[in-house]
């Protein structure tokens, strides 16, 4: 299909301001009377607070106020209300706020916070879900049965189970009876950190007129606004939230992370704004972390390779609260089928409270965790069946007419799994392996298919305000957060196409401000292009209709006889009879000065159509827009050290329609790198006592340029979808999903060792090689 502005490399509108350092991130904001806060974190991951002595801190220079949680009754959470802004009489994880100092300057606040003395009585610590589930485990939340929660989510009182989600499809017993072969395994995707380069931060200002104004490095201004209003008993309109530029997100700046804590602190000094920005250590331990998922998987198949059944049980160490992790787990559970149709499923996901920071969204949102399991199992099953792994997969791919675990029947418009797989296969596996071993290296190749759904919410709208200016240029205002992914340019290109107006004449919003921006649930789930784009198309259609209505009065014809091309509204039968668009944007002015018609401002929103809550079988319209893809890698393992070198990484996704080729490649290349980091290096580690082992960049070790693959190949299939604008689907998270299984499958190909957990460090490889030699 011929597009004018879609599918073109149009430079992003925010690049100049970023490359000159002019954009304002949270920490760059200065306000009159701005105070700074520093927060005390506990010495123990699980302990009763016996006493807090703030007297020495209060005497320090520049200190305005020392804050503790004594008597704090505030609770929050938009899924399960199991969060408090500060520890009250007990600490539950090592990053929790225990006390805070507000001072004139940051060095003063930091000096004083060290002077606070806290006495604790330690309690048993549970880092892993399995330990927290033991019969004699102490309860992390004694009153979990009383927590408010959304329908369908519920803590099991008297246990550390924050939620259990069960999905049933078909008859699992029958499925196993029909199976000739059964394979099973247990896979672990450990804790990780999104580690955006910009740390979290927030500014909160309780104004004298009893309104609240806040700034946050967050992607969900409206959730923050609604939760602050609820907690402080204000009408929502009296809370204003600004989102400045964001220095990366990758998931962990979604939901509420630090804002309620900073509000609680700032609430002690009404009239003055208080700023807090995380140290890197705090960013690792006091915001949201990722993963922490253990997947037990059992698959049955017939001898001919047809899958009969899937049983998964996921244990999620969800951390001190489940509010931000519960949907990650639900997504991991119902997407644990990967890209395959299983006629019978029993999928169980357990969110378990642990003494670790809360788990939240991490690019991929549960998919990479459980699909590591299914994609490794497909290779293992193929071996057991003595079948080509591609053939096995092909027999079972989801596609038109196939039914997902959720019970949704797929259509051609959901994308083409096999074509993605064929592209990747053609690039990496078309020839037999040239070499499997030489003096220095073992060589391996591995493949993984993948599927992703957005995991939205039923009310997850995105909205668009569109305004024609007097010269025919257009301003677009939305609530979607630009975190670096290039969202603003997608908005601009989609609007340009929908309005047939050059992108240079379309200005897209920068800051999000709940006072001016249209409502948006939050910018998550790789949904913005799909839903936000649909909202833009709807707003543009309304605007064009308004332009035509005014023009129909000017030209004195019925509006059905008119057409629009971005420059003019004209008579279809006689294009010379026309009105220039700039003359219509504010209504039309006749020569005598009289005006008619409306100012062209429109609004529209879009959500995923017919999204539902799960039914009693855990099924429902909950996937809606599926995206398929395939990834593969070619790697080398250094015999001497065990070091893994990725020579070539290949990805193909069916994205429906590419909007900006440079940007979409950037998304994939960056996402793959993130997946490589998780597969080979990254793990946020805690000691048995719950203390963090590596909360710094040096120790956590996310990839540098030296870890980048020798080459990345990125291909796209474009089977248009029915929901997104011009057929487009989301892509932000997908590139991480198949990386770990592709690498682990390649490791097996290279050295014949099956790994079941990541990261596969060079030490682990070395150990496996040495074991092999014995």
């Amino acid at each position, binding site marked *: 299909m011929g597009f004018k502005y879609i599918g073109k490399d149009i*430079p*992003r509108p*925010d*690049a*100049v*301001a*970023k*490359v*000159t*350092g*002019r*954009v*304002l*991130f949270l*920490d*760059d904001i*200065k306000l009159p009377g701005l105070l700074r806060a520093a927060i005390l974190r506990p010495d123990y991951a699980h302990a009763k607070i016996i006493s807090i002595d703030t007297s020495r801190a209060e005497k320090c220079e520049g200190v305005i106020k020392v804050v503790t949680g004594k008597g704090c009754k505030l609770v929050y959470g938009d899924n399960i209300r199991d969060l408090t802004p500060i520890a009250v009489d007990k600490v539950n994880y090592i990053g929790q706020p225990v006390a805070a100092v507000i001072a004139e*300057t*940051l*060095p003063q606040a930091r000096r004083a916070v060290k002077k606070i003395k806290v006495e604790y009585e330690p309690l048993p610590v549970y880092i892993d879900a399995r330990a927290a589930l033991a019969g004699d485990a102490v309860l992390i939340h004694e009153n979990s049965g009383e927590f408010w929660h959304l329908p369908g989510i519920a803590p099991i009182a008297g246990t550390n189970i924050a939620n259990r989600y069960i999905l049933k499809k078909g008859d699992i017993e029958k499925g196993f009876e029909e199976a000739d072969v059964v394979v099973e395994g247990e896979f672990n995707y450990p804790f990780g950190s*999104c*580690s*955006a*380069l*910009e*740390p979290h931060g927030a500014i909160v200002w309780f104004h004298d007129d009893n309104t609240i104004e806040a700034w946050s490095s967050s992607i969900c201004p409206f959730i923050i606004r609604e939760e602050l209003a609820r907690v402080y008993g204000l009408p929502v309109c009296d809370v204003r939230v600004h989102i400045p*530029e*964001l*220095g*990366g997100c*990758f998931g962990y700046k979604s939901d509420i992370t630090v804002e309620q804590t900073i509000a609680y602190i700032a609430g002690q000094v009404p009239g003055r704004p208080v700023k807090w920005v995380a*140290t*890197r*250590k705090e960013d690792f331990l006091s915001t949201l972390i990722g993963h922490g998922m253990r997947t037990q998987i059992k698959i049955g198949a017939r001898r001919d390779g047809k899958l009969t059944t899937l049983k998964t049980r996921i244990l999620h160490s969800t951390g001190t609260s489940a509010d931000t992790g519960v949907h990650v787990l639900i997504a991991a559970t119902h997407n644990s089928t990967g890209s395959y149709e299983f006629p019978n499923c029993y999928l169980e996901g357990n969110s378990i409270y642990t003494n670790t920071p809360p788990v939240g969204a991490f690019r991929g949102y549960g998919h990479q965790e459980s699909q590591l399991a299914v994609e490794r199992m497909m290779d293992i099953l193929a071996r057991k069946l003595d079948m080509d792994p591609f053939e096995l997969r092909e027999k079972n791919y989801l596609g038109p007419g196939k039914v997902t675990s959720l019970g949704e029947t797929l259509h051609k418009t959901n994308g083409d799994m096999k074509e993605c797989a064929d592209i990747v296969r053609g690039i990496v596996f078309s020839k037999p392996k040239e070499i499997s071993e030489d003096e220095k290296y073992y060589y391996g190749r591995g493949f993984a298919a993948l599927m992703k759904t957005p995991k939205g919410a039923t009310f997850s709208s995105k909205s668009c305000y569109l305004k024609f200016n007097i010269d025919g240029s257009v301003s677009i205002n939305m609530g979607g957060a630009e*975190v*670096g*992914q*290039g969202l603003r340019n997608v908005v601009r290109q989609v609007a340009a196409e929908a309005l047939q107006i050059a992108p240079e004449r379309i200005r897209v919003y920068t800051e999000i401000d709940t006072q001016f921006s249209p409502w948006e649930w939050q910018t998550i789930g790789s949904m913005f292009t799909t839903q936000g784009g649909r909202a833009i198309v709807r707003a543009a259609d309304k605007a064009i209709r308004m332009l035509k209505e005014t023009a129909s009065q000017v030209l004195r014809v019925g509006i059905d006889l008119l057409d629009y091309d971005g420059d003019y509204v004209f008579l279809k039968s006689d294009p010379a009879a026309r009105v220039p668009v700039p003359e219509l944007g504010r209504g039309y002015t006749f020569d005598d000065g009289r005006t008619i018609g409306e100012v062209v401002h429109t609004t529209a929103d879009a959500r995923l159509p017919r999204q539902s809550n799960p039914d009693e079988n855990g099924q429902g319209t909950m996937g809606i827009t599926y995206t398929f893809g395939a990834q593969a890698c070619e790697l080398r393992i250094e015999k001497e050290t065990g070091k893994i070198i990725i020579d070539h990484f290949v990805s193909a996704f069916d994205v429906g329609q590419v909007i900006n080729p*440079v*940007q979409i*490649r*950037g998304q994939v*290349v*960056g*996402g*793959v*790198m*993130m997946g490589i980091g998780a597969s080979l290096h990254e793990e946020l580690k805690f000691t048995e006592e719950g203390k963090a082992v590596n909360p*710094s*960049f*040096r120790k956590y070790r*996310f*990839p*540098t*340029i*030296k870890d*980048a693959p020798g080459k*990345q190949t990125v291909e796209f299939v474009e089977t248009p979808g029915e929901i997104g604008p011009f057929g487009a689907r989301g892509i932000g998270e997908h590139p991480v999903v198949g990386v770990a299984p592709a690498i682990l499958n390649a490791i097996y190909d290279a050295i014949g060792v099956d790994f079941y957990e990541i990261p596969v460090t060079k030490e682990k490889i070395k150990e496996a090689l040495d074991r092999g030699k014995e």
Partner: protein
Amino acid sequence: MPEKITFTVNGTSRTVEIEGSEKLIYILREKLNLTGTKRGCDDASCGACVVVVDDEAVKSCTFPAKKLAGKEVLTIEGMANGTNLHPIQRALIDAGAVQCGYCTPGIVMELFALFHRKRDATDDEIKEVLSRHLCRCTGYEAIYDGALLARKYLSEAVDR
């Protein structure tokens, strides 16, 4: 005791009061309101804070303010000439190397110091200096391409 020091920032002489252990990043961001220089870590590992001091790329998060007297500091705010971007900035944009942009100022300054020292720096030298910078968004491919493009733009600027 606060002490007064004078140094040059982006061509302008500035005098600031410093206390004992302050670092250059604090002076730039908090005292001179030059917020283009970013802080990304606590352990001098990310490179977001890199500025140029007397032609050398330095991490401003570890550079002691005390040592600033008489030095010439160049920050990201001093790179473009009005709306005329520096070729390095232009190159990073053209290569699609700017996503969230948080790592970008440090990388621009790092490349500036490198090409100032050696206009025809080799691919490996470029990779080596870039390995001092963390970027969570791009996967480095576009940044590396941008650096190569910057080298090209700079040599064209000289030839012209």
